[in-house]
């Protein structure tokens, strides 16, 4: 190619392009990485940036946490998500927790003494709330109209329910071939198709609870995570599948059905458990706050608490756990010196020697014996000064007070347009994006709050029709 041809191909000059023009200039323009990150991610200014999923409209015919959270993930990324609830009732999660004590009102004009519990928080954010009773034949047309105007749907009903109601993927596909359909079933299809599911069932059925908690030899039992970790985790995993389906549709123009089993999702969290069984026939055991592969690498208890005068029992009695990690030989040797047990290192010089169960029992007992007259912060300070990785086990209050989390926006205050001051930890916890960050506009809205916006403004129904459907309890 001669220079003339080359010049023809060019659409601009290198000098015109933004950015550094020489190596020196590049070096000059570089800022410290910390400063770069703060500028690039800039938590709190996400509303000034574009949304990755703007233009995608998703229906969320979901309940509780597992499936709603999948749609909330899309809404955080900019999709327009329409949450469909039962008229006057709403998602049962609104009435579920925490123990009916922390409610926000109103739920609906017809139920002035009923509100929405904090358990509903973070699972349905940025969504538009409409009502529709699918059980009534007259509602079918309304549902199909919504499907025709949408890119996808997430539902959580039992095996084949939507299919039986003629609103499953096989029916909707014929009306909207580009439609992406998520069935978030409990067990999914298979021999246990009739089983519904809850988070705890997922943790139990997938074998996760069997490897969580302390071994029975130490007085422990199979344990579930206190929070509904499988619900939250599965919701995010569904969103990953939905994004893949959206990309597939860009290539082929065709929709997809995503079948997502909650109990199946939990198996993915068991790590090497299944491969271990496959190779050796060994059933993995619980090992609680210690680690089967590394030692010392666990959570220990100190003898004294950090806040003995606190009123809150979580602080008064429980501020005494420390995570400590010193499994490499040099670190372990230093740990033994710090706790004044150099002979412990002589006994367990190699990692192979100290990772066995009897060795771990001796080692952790020695660390806790040393910590018996110390507070949590004293232990952390001493270990850190010795160059050993150690951190206090924080509670909610301390997470709230953590400067690290505040700087990153992990935990922050939202001025919810309807409900006011609201402490939140959603959106950023699923990753910071420099160009198209996740965002949180509102936590939730009352049941049917957007009926007019969606049925009138989007679908074009006359107001008289909306009122008629509302009076018949279909909306």
């Amino acid at each position, binding site marked *: 190619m001669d220079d003339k041809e080359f010049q023809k191909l060019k659409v601009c000059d290198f000098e015109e392009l933004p950015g550094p023009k020489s190596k020196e200039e590049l070096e000059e323009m570089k800022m410290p990485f910390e400063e770069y990150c703060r500028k690039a991610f800039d938590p709190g200014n996400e509303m000034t940036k574009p949304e990755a999923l703007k233009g995608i409209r998703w229906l969320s015919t979901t309940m509780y946490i597992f499936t709603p959270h999948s749609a909330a993930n899309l809404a955080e990324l900019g999709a327009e998500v329409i949450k469909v609830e039962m008229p006057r009732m709403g998602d049962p999660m609104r*009435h579920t927790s925490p*123990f*009916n*004590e*922390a*409610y*926000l*009102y*109103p739920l*609906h*004009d*017809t139920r*002035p*003494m*009923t*509100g929405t519990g904090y358990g509903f928080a973070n699972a349905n954010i940025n969504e538009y709330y409409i*009502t529709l009773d699918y059980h009534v034949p007259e509602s079918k047309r309304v549902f199909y109209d919504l499907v025709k105007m949408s890119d996808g749907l997430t539902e959580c009903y039992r095996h084949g329910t939507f299919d039986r109601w003629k609103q499953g993927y096989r029916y909707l596909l014929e009306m909207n071939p580009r439609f992406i359909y998520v069935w978030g079933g409990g067990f999914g299809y298979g021999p246990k198709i009739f089983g519904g599911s809850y988070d705890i069932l997922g943790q139990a059925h997938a074998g996760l609870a069997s490897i969580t908690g302390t071994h029975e030899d130490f007085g422990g039992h199979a344990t579930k995570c206190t929070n509904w970790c499988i619900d939250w985790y599965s919701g995010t995993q569904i969103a990953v599948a939905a994004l893949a389906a959206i990309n597939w549709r860009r290539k082929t123009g065709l929709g997809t059905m995503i079948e997502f089993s909650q109990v199946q999702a939990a198996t993915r969290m068991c790590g090497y458990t299944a491969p271990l069984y496959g190779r050796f026939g060994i059933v993995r055991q619980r090992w609680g706050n210690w680690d089967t592969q590394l030692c010392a690498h666990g959570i220990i208890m100190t003898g004294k608490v950090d806040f003995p005068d606190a009123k809150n029992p979580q602080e008064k009695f429980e501020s005494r756990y420390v995570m400590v990690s010193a499994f490499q030989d040099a670190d372990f040797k230093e740990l033994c010196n710090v706790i004044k047990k150099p002979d412990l290192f002589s006994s367990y010089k190699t990692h192979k020697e100290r990772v066995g169960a009897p060795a771990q029992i001796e080692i952790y007992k020695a660390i806790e014996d040393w910590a018996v007259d110390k507070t949590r912060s004293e232990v952390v300070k001493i270990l850190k000064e010795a160059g050993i990785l150690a951190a206090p086990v924080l509670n909610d209050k301390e997470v*709230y*007070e953590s400067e690290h989390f*505040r700087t990153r926006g992990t935990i922050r*205050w939202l*001025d*919810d*347009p*309807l*409900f*006011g*001051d*609201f*402490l939140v930890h959603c959106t950023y916890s699923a990753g910071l994006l420099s160009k198209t960050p996740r965002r949180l506009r*509102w936590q939730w*809205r*009352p*049941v*049917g*709050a*957007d*009926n*007019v*916006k969606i*049925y009138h403004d989007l679908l074009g129904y006359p*107001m008289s029709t*909306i*009122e008629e*459907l*509302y009076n018949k309890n279909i*909306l």
Partner: protein
Amino acid sequence: MCDIIWCKKEAGGKPCDTVNYLDPYCFWNWEGKVGCAECGTVYYVHMIQGHMYRGPVEKPGEKPDILPLYADKPYKGYDFYLPGVEGRTRPFDCLPREIYLGHADTVKFSIRGKPLRGWRPQPPSTGVAGSCGFFWDIEKLSPEVWAEYQEKIKKGEVKDW
């Protein structure tokens, strides 16, 4: 886990066959008498940690301490009694349990002193089909809380964190 009392009491030659649902939180640790929503038969139960430790045992002639929250009749096409049917089921109004607070927690300010809207009861305020606006102007709609908020600001009780 929600325990039930399946009433099999014969009345008029037919069993009552009503399933009386015991709300889990109220009955987790509970001892007393529950009345069947259909026939009024009184049953004594003693529950510990959600397990039916004793009962249900019939207590003819005695008055129930509490009524079930909900009841249905599975052999009669699922006839049911919703919560709050007088003399049959007790009402359910989503109040916090008395053992915790004794009253509904209707705080109006968050821990950093800013208004937390959404206390109960809220006046009816929605439009067609339950629709409502996107923003609640607290100054206009709850002037007394707004005034309290201004006082808090003056006293320096409103913080960033």
